[in-house]
């Protein structure tokens, strides 16, 4: 037998047939297919037992359940944040930010994983130990204190009422610095209006029981107070076959709330307060008001001062106001009559669409309207909350000797973070050496983010205490990792507008960053290092201990932490207690009057002081609920437009950043293709400016500019431009960074007349076609 080509071929063919007769080929093919279905880089989450833990999101003050999986190998991890059916402000509902909180918690690419020190000159970042980091901060502060410059430090935090805010304020105060400021909120504005008119700082709206709601520019459905609770109230107004409740929205844009309202009154932006007063006047003229208002202090004229009634009759003619606000008179009358007739009607105010704290006199005007309706203390009306039974952390601390950077000259002190930043930049009365950014991401959230950015750039030593590598961390010299709210101890107090008070405690449930410490713990450790007065002012080892002390009167602390929250059991119905000098409702606020006179020194200087505070109309109306023309109306010259923010629960208003899932659900009317910001304009306005839908435009204010795609929207008021707020992060990883631009960089901030709260709802801007 020869071994030639033919025999070889035969053998080879046989071998091939033989291999095919074996399972080799089909098995290889089968396995390759299976391989394509199970690529090794696709995650394989490990299963395990499921448990739910109660906690409260400090972002919304709303109870949530963390769904935690306990796996045999991977251990405990949270896989969902759901609503808490047993929490009165949640009832199972949740907002997008809370539902996607885990995306920020677990993303190690955006979390600060260890203390870091940045070299300003080289930009180099060095990881340091906790002890080194605390030495750095304590060393800096003690040096300031020793050289008598303690006041040249400024600390910013998101919330004055939470435990971290309390600790920070005590730390700064005992160190000798009067400069602690917080994110301005409508809670403060409401407290001012409430105290001045009723002697009650804690007021809320009983939305769930109201059947006729008039909202003065309040973005009820875009996030307001406790957003879930507001939605549940809204759902109660909707029914089958007829709606049991009526919602009237007064605002310049066909927003979500306006679109879902039964009646939308598109008013000129900023005229809301005047409309509330015009409604009072109509009720007065028609005789359809609650007669008990006649006995209110300041309803009739008093010695030397005109009363509320005279002022209404003089300044708030229905025709004049309707014309000024651009609303058909018939509609205004119809709404007023329906409001007056409704069984349980309420008027709602604040916050501004841009998340600003709202104008104080507008709040007073709306309170007056509610008083005219006679709904104070009634179901579906304005209620007083039970004050939270929280204890002070420790005894009072003597006030620092130096005056604060800003606000010291006002009759009452409010927290104006923007004025402080501007004063520090101008070095008037003095500059600052150290800036502590304790959460809140002020360099992004502002108000007026670019002022904060400049301040951070010009301050010699900047500390950021933050869970994230955010915009504030990016400009800080020392970055300290604090815990996410699912990781550490903290608390939150009653959200704005809630009819009942509530207190939330969040505790460590999972651990995502082992090095992170509670912001409170960091401050307490610094206080320990500083020693002396400072350590005495903060006699706690941990935030947990401080929380336990704070909530002593709420029962067992462990039980409270486990339950996550304390909520006022029953809403307070019945005639409210007026803690005013007259013991009555005060339309003419004696408290405000006395404060102003005291500050002015004499009645003669009063007018000058009021003029200095920007109160138009002077002492004649300054102590009555009245309407002040918004400052932004003043600079509408040439082809300037009014810029207002478009709030949305899909973007958040501050606090934590927008999450990746929220970016995913942004409609293309907010974020267009290739991550471009979208601004809205009425077709008529666009035509007048020779702009078309889809054009790339430049929105410019005195403070900054935004490049955006123009969306021509029939529901936008003419003469205005509407900008989504909460976009345009430079930090937070590829899923969030570089999406749109930051509204807060273009918003102009002014001080509210009288209250001095920062206001940035309206800004004069020019809009033109962008080059390129």
């Amino acid at each position, binding site marked *: 037998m020869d071994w030639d080509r033919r025999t070889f071929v035969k053998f080879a063919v046989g071998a091939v047939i033989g291999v095919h007769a074996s399972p080799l080929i089909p098995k290889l093919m089968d396995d390759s297919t299976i391989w394509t279905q199970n690529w090794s880089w696709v995650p394989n989450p490990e299963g395990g037992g499921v448990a739910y833990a109660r906690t409260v999101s400090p972002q919304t003050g709303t109870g949530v359940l963390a769904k935690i999986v306990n796996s045999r190998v991977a251990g405990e991890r949270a896989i969902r944040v759901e609503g808490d059916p047993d929490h009165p402000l949640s009832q199972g509902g949740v907002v997008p930010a809370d539902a996607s909180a885990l995306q920020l918690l677990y993303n190690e690419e955006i979390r600060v994983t260890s203390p870091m020190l940045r070299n300003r000159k080289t930009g180099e970042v060095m990881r340091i130990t906790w002890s080194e980091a605390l030495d750095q901060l304590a060393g800096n502060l003690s040096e300031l204190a020793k050289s008598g410059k303690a006041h040249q430090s400024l600390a910013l935090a998101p919330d004055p009422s939470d435990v971290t805010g309390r600790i920070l304020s005590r730390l700064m105060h005992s160190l000798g610095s009067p400069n602690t400021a917080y994110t301005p909120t409508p809670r403060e504005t409401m407290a001012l209006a409430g105290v001045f008119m009723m002697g009650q700082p804690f007021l809320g709206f009983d939305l769930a029981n109201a059947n006729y709601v008039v909202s003065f520019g309040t973005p009820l459905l875009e996030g307001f107070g406790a957003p879930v609770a507001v*939605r549940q109230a809204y759902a109660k107004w909707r029914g089958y076959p007829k709606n049991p409740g009526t919602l009237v929205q007064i605002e310049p844009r066909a927003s979500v709330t306006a679109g879902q309202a039964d009646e939308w009154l598109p008013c000129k932006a900023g005229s809301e307060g005047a409309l509330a007063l015009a409604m009072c006047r109509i009720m007065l003229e028609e005789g359809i008001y609650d007669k008990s208002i006649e006995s209110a202090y300041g309803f009739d004229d008093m010695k030397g001062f005109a009363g509320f009634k005279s002022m209404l009759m003089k300044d708030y003619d229905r025709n004049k106001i309707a014309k000024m606000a651009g609303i058909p008179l018939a509609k205004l009358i119809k709404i007023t009559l329906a409001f007056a007739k409704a069984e349980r009607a309420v008027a709602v105010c604040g916050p501004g669409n841009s998340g600003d704290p709202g104008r104080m006199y507008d709040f007073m005007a709306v309170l007056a309207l509610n008083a005219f309706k006679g709904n104070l203390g009634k179901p579906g009306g304005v209620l007083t909350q039970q004050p939270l039974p929280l204890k002070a952390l420790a005894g009072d601390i003597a006030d620092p000797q130096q005056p604060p950077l800003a606000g010291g000259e006002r009759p009452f002190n409010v927290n104006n973070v923007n004025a402080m930043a501007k004063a520090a930049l101008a070095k008037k009365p003095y500059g600052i050496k150290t800036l502590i950014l304790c959460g809140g991401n002020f360099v992004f959230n502002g108000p007026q983010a670019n002022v904060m950015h400049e301040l951070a750039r010009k301050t010699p030593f900047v500390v950021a205490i933050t869970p994230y590598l955010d915009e504030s961390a990016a400009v800080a010299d020392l970055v300290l990792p604090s815990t996410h709210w699912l990781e550490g101890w903290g608390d939150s107090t009653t959200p704005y507008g809630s009819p009942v008070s509530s207190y939330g405690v969040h505790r460590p449930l999972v651990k995502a960053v082992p090095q992170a410490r509670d912001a409170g713990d960091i401050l307490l450790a610094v206080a320990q290092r500083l020693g002396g007065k400072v350590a005495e002012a903060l006699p706690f080892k941990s935030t947990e201990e401080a929380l336990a002390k704070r909530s002593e009167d709420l029962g067992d602390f462990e039980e409270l932490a486990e339950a996550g929250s304390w909520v006022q059991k029953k809403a307070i119905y019945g005639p409210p207690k007026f803690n005013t000098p007259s013991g009555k409702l005060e339309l003419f606020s004696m408290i405000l009057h006395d404060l102003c006179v005291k500050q002015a020194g004499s009645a003669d200087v009063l007018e000058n002081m009021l003029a200095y505070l920007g109160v138009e109309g002077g002492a004649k109306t300054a102590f009555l609920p009245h309407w002040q023309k918004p400052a932004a109306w003043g600079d509408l010259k040439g082809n300037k437009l009014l810029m207002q923010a478009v709030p949305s629960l899909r973007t958040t208003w501050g606090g934590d950043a927008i999450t990746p899932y929220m970016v995913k659900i942004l409609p293309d009317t907010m974020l267009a293709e290739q991550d471009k910001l979208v601004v809205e304009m009425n077709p008529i306005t666009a035509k007048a400016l020779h702009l078309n839908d889809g054009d790339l435009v430049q929105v410019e204010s005195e403070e900054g500019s935004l490049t955006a795609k123009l969306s021509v929207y029939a529901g936008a008021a003419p003469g205005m431009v509407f900008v989504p707020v909460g976009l345009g992060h430079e930090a937070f990883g590829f899923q969030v960074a570089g999406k749109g631009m930051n509204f807060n960089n273009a918003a102009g901030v002014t001080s509210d007349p009288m209250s001095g709260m920062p206001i940035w709802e309206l800004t004069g801007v020019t809009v033109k076609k962008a080059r390129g």
Partner: protein
Amino acid sequence: MWRKDQVRYGMVIDVDKCTGCGACSVACMSENNVGVLHDETDKIKSITWLRVYQIDNGKPFPDTEVAFFPRPCMHCQGGESGTPGQGFFQEDTDPDAAHTPCVSVCPATATDYDDATGIVSQIPTRCIGCRYCVAACPYHARYFNWYDVPWPKGTPRALSPFVSPRMRGVVEKCTFCYPRLQQAKNKTFLDGSEVGEMDYQTACTEACPSGAITFGQLQDPGHKVHKLIKTDHAFRMLEKLGTNPKVYYTSKRKWVRMLADNHLSQAKAAKAAASGGH
């Protein structure tokens, strides 16, 4: 054909209560391990099982009105549908007439219609990525994974073990949170109970802060959805296509109902009334 021992899960969304906050959409993504790509403004490639659409009545200022349409998978049954009085939904007595647009075109049997629950499945590991079903779905409820999901470091820790993460090259869609039914059934096997209305609720239903979404068994008189689908304001999207979907909407606003293309059912209602009803 529907038998008494089978159930039909369906959903009713009250458009008048929906405030467009997107909580349902986010809860859905978190529940079902949906990923986030670099550019999510590219809506062809962006995956949102439950997308919230915004519509307006097209009128100029100041008469503009807006409404929101959350759109999950409709879990179409196909075949002859009922009349408005019956809540539209009825199982066609002819099994061959049943026609779920996506199921009928899938060459790989990666999606099927479950006779026991009425839920349309999607098995990503079986999918060959031809996207025929994406084209067939009249509601744009199906999404194709053009890329592998870039999970940032640490984020896979938040993934749910009850839903398998997908790879690139496959189609995915809303499953009515089927894994929740699997978990609920697990419990019933152990203690011999039945899956009650509240034992199986979808993530979006639970999350909705205004309670606009209701979920349950369409054919069970004890369930809330059964009553809701019979109200005058109930309608379905693109009724005229005959997809016989199991997601219902309700709205008191006529323009909303008209935009959802409910014309056919009204014509049907008239016809039914003329012929003395079914």
